[in-house]
């Protein structure tokens, strides 16, 4: 992957996502092939620059307190003593954990623990960011905030890897998604264009046409009509052209809903091979 890219890793349980991330951190050697970050072995890269990392579960001694945890990780992260308090307060503010700063990690809920992990990952500026199931345990509000934070982390010299079960999340955040199964990349799906616009080609559609369903069905090859419902397969631009033509031809469209995105379809096909 290139700098500036956000690459997702999708896969069922046991597909090898966390193993791949352990290899990216240089904690496990590959059984075959090589892993390189910026031309060097992952461990050498991490020891030189560090990686912003958020695991699925915050694994740190639970007797540590929130502020202490961030102080420790800021120290390990090489943040200068004079800048540590500022960095700590910045990430506490960004992740909304001020009220938990004095609590031990074992006193925190799963969601708050995950926010501490996110705060830790944001402490230092890193060129490589690795998130492993980052929204695990987060409530919907913080899941949305997390997406904003990830969007804010996009930078032309930064590469981000996000492993997740959540295809919708990957589709929103990533440029490309690698679908992993049985320890191998089965397929790589492009979900964003260079300009950042989502170019996922939604393939299957369900459209409620109040009147003139046959007009729309006649414009999309293979479309099936069942009363007011038209089901068809085509990409996003073709869908728009067909709808515009159908409306111009007198059709009254009530609702348009994607049944399955190309990412979901690719995932389903890849992991059931």
């Amino acid at each position, binding site marked *: 992957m290139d700098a500036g890219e956000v690459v997702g890793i999708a896969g069922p349980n046991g597909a090898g996502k966390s193993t791949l991330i*352990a290899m990216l951190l240089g904690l496990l050697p590959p059984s075959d092939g090589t892993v390189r970050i910026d031309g060097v072995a992952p461990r050498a890269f991490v*020891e030189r620059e560090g990686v912003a990392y958020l*695991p699925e579960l915050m694994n740190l001694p639970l007797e540590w307190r929130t502020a202490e945890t961030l102080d420790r990780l800021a120290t390990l992260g090489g943040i200068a003593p004079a800048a540590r308090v500022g960095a700590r307060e910045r990430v506490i503010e960004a992740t909304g954990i001020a009220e938990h700063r004095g609590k031990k990690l074992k006193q925190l809920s799963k969601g708050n623990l995950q926010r501490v992990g996110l705060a830790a990952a944001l402490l230092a500026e890193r060129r490589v960011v690795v998130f492993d199931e980052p929204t695990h345990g987060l409530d919907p509000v913080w899941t949305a905030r997390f997406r904003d934070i990830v969007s804010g982390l996009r930078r032309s010299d930064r590469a981000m890897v996000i492993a997740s079960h959540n295809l919708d999340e990957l589709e929103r955040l990533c440029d490309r998604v690698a679908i992993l199964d049985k320890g191998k990349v089965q397929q790589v799906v492009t979900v964003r264009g260079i300009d950042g616009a989502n170019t996922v080609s939604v393939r299957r559609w369900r459209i409620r046409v109040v009147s003139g369903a046959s007009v729309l069905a006649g414009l999309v090859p293979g479309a099936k009509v069942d009363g007011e419902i038209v089901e068809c397969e085509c990409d996003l631009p073709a869908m728009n052209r067909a709808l515009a033509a159908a409306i111009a031809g007198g059709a009254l469209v009530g609702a348009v809903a994607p049944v399955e995105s190309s990412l979901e379809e690719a995932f389903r096909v890849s992991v059931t091979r």
Partner: protein
Amino acid sequence: MTGTSPLAYLRWHARDSLLRSVVPLFLFSAIAVLPIRSLVSRSGMDAVRADGQLQQNVLQIYSQTLTLAMTLGAVLLLSGFIAQDRERGHVRFLFAAPVVPWQHYLMRALVAVAMFTALFVLIPLGFSWLVVPVEIVGVLKSALLFAALYGGLAMLCGALVNKDGALFIVLVVATTILQQLEKGELLGHTLAVVARALPPLVLADSVRSRWLAGNAPVSADLLHVGLYAVALYVVALVVIRRTPLAR
């Protein structure tokens, strides 16, 4: 961009090592203070200082408890922490930072050994001040030697396996039995060679006995124990460097 200096985390290493370093003080207090205090309060401090037999009894309690606290404290000092970091997944978080793992663990070990030694010497200092004068420098040297030897062994076990506590106990018990038998010339040639190759725990005990009695140990014995301890750390650090941190 360069990695974080291994010295940066010293403060936190000290904090993490503090609890284990004060274990011998608690042990000594729990075992020795009550009987010594009862002897002293029954006869009075002057009587203890004047009565050779009474003083001998007090010193016997002191020295037996001191050696027990030193050995147990040294055993606990560095046991478990590397395997725990690995098994509980702390390594993923700690070593996503620009940190060299073997340097991180070396610093932790050095800080722990230094703190253990510095705190342990409070026992003879306090005893000398409150009861009767006892050897201090010998205790300091012994504490350092024991922390280094047992700490090195614990670190190597932690670097090698996740069930490091079990390996450590098996090694210590087996080594002590074999080396005691070897000392009494009760082993065949092969087992005697094995006993001599194992960590010199019995030899360390004899070096300590001489130091605590205010005598100089046999130089070759001291050299053997010291070099063995250093070798244990070197091998442990090489294992940390060479083997996967996530297992």
